[in-house]
């Protein structure tokens, strides 16, 4: 039987002026289930809270309703007070008679009547409240960082420096990401390698960071604080523990004409290779596509260990016992982590998506990243801007902005944000390297928001004499060994035809292919373009809807290095905050399944925004599967209740906002006097004119829900 205490607050004049608080308390005394009701000037003050604490003991209260301000304001205050008196905090609710009543209405009688109704709704709710216990989850003090670009590197270092273990998983043979490919970086033009390499080395040497390269996340289970992640470590065919990176193998490898991924196809590499000289780890791997021995084994259908072809690398390896290991195989490793940072970065729009500019067809139409390699002192041309087709120096350069970006037809409705800056950089670098050369930039708008960014673009135009043409290029073709651009200058309103030696395309930034599959494993949402979605675009920019999973860098959307690093630091601080605790208390407002009723229709499983619902197999004693039912993972559920509305037979319910509670709330609003022919259903009820059920209401303890009794009937007996 409920014994509810009602505490009506005057909030000084704030409520008291418009709402007749003593009358509200008086009405409360007549509500079923209410054992005690008082009004007081300031319920949230110390004496007010003391009053509640005393009443709980004195009247053996089983629930509380505080009629005062918004629960968004003081719910924690009163729930804590309840807890101090030994009452489960979730048995305390608030009726909002200030923001939703006294402050918005003027007529005292009307406001008082409404306050009574709002209170009655909450009293009815509390009659159906149940004691809930915060879900306490232990936390594994270790983080996983997925992706080793600058975002992942920064996050890993920050977390490790704060004293937490980090596992950094990188798909490529080396960390570094796109930043390692850049020549010099805007707006300061410092050399990318010079600022990045020390950080890469620090990762490799950090005692708290475990670096797994050639590795990918295969499966994720568990929840915040307790993830279990299966990592696939791909065969590298080189034993990292033995290899010293001396280079003997790649010097001997006979396959020397493989286009280098790192040089964006402009340079060449061998089949056993280190992607670039500053790679971390600076140890090679064997590219099985091109390795002669692997090819031979594939052709013959035999294990590679049985092939006798080539093997020059192995022979050349000076290490006793050899570091080359053809018997290597993929390995699956399961790791336990408490938090996950996703830092999988971006790609640029592939050439095939931009046929109109001849990328991929004309050798001298290059992408932004290819230009970075050409401009890089460690690149294939040692930093001289030469044409990929014939190696001749470039005299006239054209750069085209917004290639794919802001073009919904290419699937990139967004602005890639960094291109305006790097095309200015490219034109500028070209002019620095070739003082007689001419650089033309075709742009739509210049978006150079950022510290020293607009100044940087102005410098390109004013000091380095870059020719900015506002307009689009419609077509490019080859003529006499040169590239001819057709376009228009929309500022002058004239057609433009320009003959150049090389064209750079500022192609759009796009999400990593396949990142959506990873996001699904993690329960992270992504938008129409495929960028991962943060929990809130303004206030929770590094969190995701999946608790314990954070975002860093360009996996979330286009951005430059400073922004990437700042965000990585933000994600790291969230992780550090989480891992610094031993346990994590989560709100017990979570869903639960009635296994007797669940039909396993999977509606809830499919609607849950955080994939918190899985499958449970019900077996008999012999272990034979009887049926499957939905099962909520309490660590993952964030308590939205979307599943409950999706469940047709109502087999799933949300603690704190149960069907029974909401039903009672709706019923509490009914004005029975208005309803003709309605029989009393045993729930005493007060319309403004009193209870037509005519039950004894003074006892205050009536609690006879006809619905509380009675067994539930089933369809198929």
């Amino acid at each position, binding site marked *: 039987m409920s014994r509810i205490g009602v505490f009506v607050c005057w909030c000084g004049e704030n409520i008291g002026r418009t709402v007749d608080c003593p009358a509200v308390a008086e009405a409360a005394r007549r509500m079923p289930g209410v054992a005690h009701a008082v009004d007081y000037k300031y319920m949230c003050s110390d004496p007010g809270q003391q009053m509640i604490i005393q009443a709980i003991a004195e009247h053996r209260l089983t629930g509380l309703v505080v009629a005062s301000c918004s629960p968004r304001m003081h719910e924690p205050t009163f729930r804590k007070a309840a807890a101090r008196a030994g009452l489960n905090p979730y048995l305390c609710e608030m009726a909002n008679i200030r923001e939703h009543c006294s402050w918005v209405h003027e007529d005292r009688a009307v406001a008082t009547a409404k306050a009574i109704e709002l209170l009655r709704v909450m009293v009815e709710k509390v009659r159906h409240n149940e004691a809930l216990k915060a879900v306490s989850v232990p936390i594994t003090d270790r983080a996983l960082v997925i992706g080793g670009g600058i975002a992942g590197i920064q996050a890993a270092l920050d977390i490790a420096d704060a004293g937490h273990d980090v596992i950094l998983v990188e798909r490529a043979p080396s960390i570094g990401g796109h930043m390692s490919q850049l020549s010099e970086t805007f707006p300061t033009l410092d050399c990318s390698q010079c600022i990045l390499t020390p950080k890469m080395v620090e990762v490799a040497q950090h005692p708290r960071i475990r670096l797994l390269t050639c590795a990918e996340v295969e499966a994720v289970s568990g929840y915040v604080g307790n993830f279990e992640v299966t990592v696939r470590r791909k065969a590298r065919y080189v034993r990292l523990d033995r290899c010293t990176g001396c280079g003997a193998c790649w010097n001997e490898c006979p396959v020397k004409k493989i286009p280098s991924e790192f040089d964006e196809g402009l340079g060449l590499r061998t089949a056993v290779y280190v992607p670039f000289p500053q790679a971390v780890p600076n140890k090679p791997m064997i590219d099985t596509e091109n390795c002669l021995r692997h090819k031979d084994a594939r052709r013959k259908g035999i294990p590679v260990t049985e092939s006798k072809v080539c093997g020059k690398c192995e022979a050349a390896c000076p290490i006793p016992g050899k570091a080359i290991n053809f018997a290597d195989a993929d390995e699956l490793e399961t790791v336990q982590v408490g938090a996950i940072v996703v830092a999988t970065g971006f790609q640029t729009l592939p050439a095939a998506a931009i046929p109109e500019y001849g990328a991929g067809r004309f050798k001298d139409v290059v992408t932004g990243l290819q230009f970075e390699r050409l401009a890089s002192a460690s690149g294939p041309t040692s930093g001289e801007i030469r044409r990929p087709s014939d190696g001749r120096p470039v005299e006239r350069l054209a750069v085209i902005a917004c290639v794919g970006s802001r073009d919904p037809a290419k699937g990139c409705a967004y602005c890639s944000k960094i291109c305006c800056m790097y095309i200015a950089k490219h034109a500028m670098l070209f002019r620095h390297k070739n003082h007689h050369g001419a650089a033309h930039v075709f742009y739509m708008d210049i978006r150079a928001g950022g510290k020293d960014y607009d100044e940087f673009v102005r410098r390109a135009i004013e000091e380095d004499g870059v020719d900015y043409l506002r307009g689009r290029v419609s077509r490019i073709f080859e003529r006499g060994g040169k590239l001819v651009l057709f376009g228009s200058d929309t500022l002058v309103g004239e057609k433009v035809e320009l003959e150049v030696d090389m064209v750079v395309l500022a192609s759009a930034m796009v999400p990593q292919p396949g990142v959506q599959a990873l996001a699904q494993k993690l329960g992270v949402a992504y938008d129409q373009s495929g960028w991962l979605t943060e929990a809130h675009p303004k206030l929770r920019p590094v969190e995701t809807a999946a608790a314990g999973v954070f975002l860093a860098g360009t996996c979330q959307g286009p951005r430059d290095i400073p922004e990437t690093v700042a965000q990585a630091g933000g994600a790291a601080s969230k992780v550090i905050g989480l891992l610094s605790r031993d346990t994590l208390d989560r709100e017990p407002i979570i869903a639960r399944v009635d296994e007797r009723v669940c*039909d396993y229709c999977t*509606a809830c499983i499919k609607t849950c925004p955080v994939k918190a619902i899985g499958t449970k197999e019900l077996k008999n004693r012999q272990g034979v599967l009887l049926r499957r039912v939905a099962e909520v993972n309490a660590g993952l559920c964030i308590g939205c209740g979307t599943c409950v509305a999706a469940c047709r*037979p109502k087999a799933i319910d949300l603690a704190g906002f149960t069907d*029974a509670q909401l039903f009672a709330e709706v019923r509490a609003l009914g004005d029975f006097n208005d309803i003709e022919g309605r029989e009393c259903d045993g729930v005493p009820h007060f319309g403004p004119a009193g209870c037509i059920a005519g039950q004894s209401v003074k006892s205050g303890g009536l609690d006879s829900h006809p*619905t509380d009794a009675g067994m539930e*009937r*089933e*369809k198929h007996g």
Partner: protein
Amino acid sequence: MPAEGRQLEKLRHLARHALESGAVSLVIGFAEGTVPGRAAPLFCTAPADADRLIFDGYCTLNLANYLTRPEVRAHQTVALVARHAVAKAVVGLVQESQVDPTRVRLIAIHCPDLDGLQQDVAWTVADGLQTLDEFLPTAAHLHDQELTPERFAAVAQVESKSSHDRWDHFAREFDKCIKCYACRNVCPLCYCERCIADKNQPQWIDTSSTQRGNFAWNIVRAFHLAGRCIDCGACERACPMDLPLMELNRKMKKVVAERFGYVAGYDPKADLPLVTFKKDDPEEFIK
């Protein structure tokens, strides 16, 4: 032998062979009913049972309904004599994890149009026992018939009334409901062990057949089948009080098709429209 007779022989042969070969342990089809013109379901477990199978325009019960019964679930593999609507219901049951498609075979019956069997239309039996995946391409062309205006004539007629008249129309119709739940019991997609209408704590729907209870039941039933109903008409035919249930079901079908571009019963891999969303779903009705 007339064409129908040959087809019936083929049907019986397929069923007999399926049981003999052990491909399935149960064939669900139709037998002559006790009331003339009303076929009754037949559960064949022995090859000889197949000789009692019949098929005609009255065999409109949706046999997929039986797949979710415990007795039927106990069989490893089951074959259904399946006109198109039955197969569509199987698609729905697969989408909702109620049926494992590898454990169902179809003895597929084809007629030229979607509702063929309600009129007296010729039918043919497909060769061999089919899996759902084998069957689906053979019925894909019927998808275009699902949304022809003729199918929505009754809906359009209701829509043309004023709101006031619509209320009167349905108030009158719902008033007839006696809460026998025949509609629910024959519906292959109303497979819930404990229907919301039987829920007691709290009781969202009045169990007695009061006007309010009838209204709530009929609305909730229609809503629960929105995007899921495969338009077989079994509920309306089962209703002893002749409630126009298909007006509601088809209205829902139309809304789902127009708003979310979805027609139930064709793609076992598709997400049902009410368990998924698009960011740019229409929302002109939201203020």
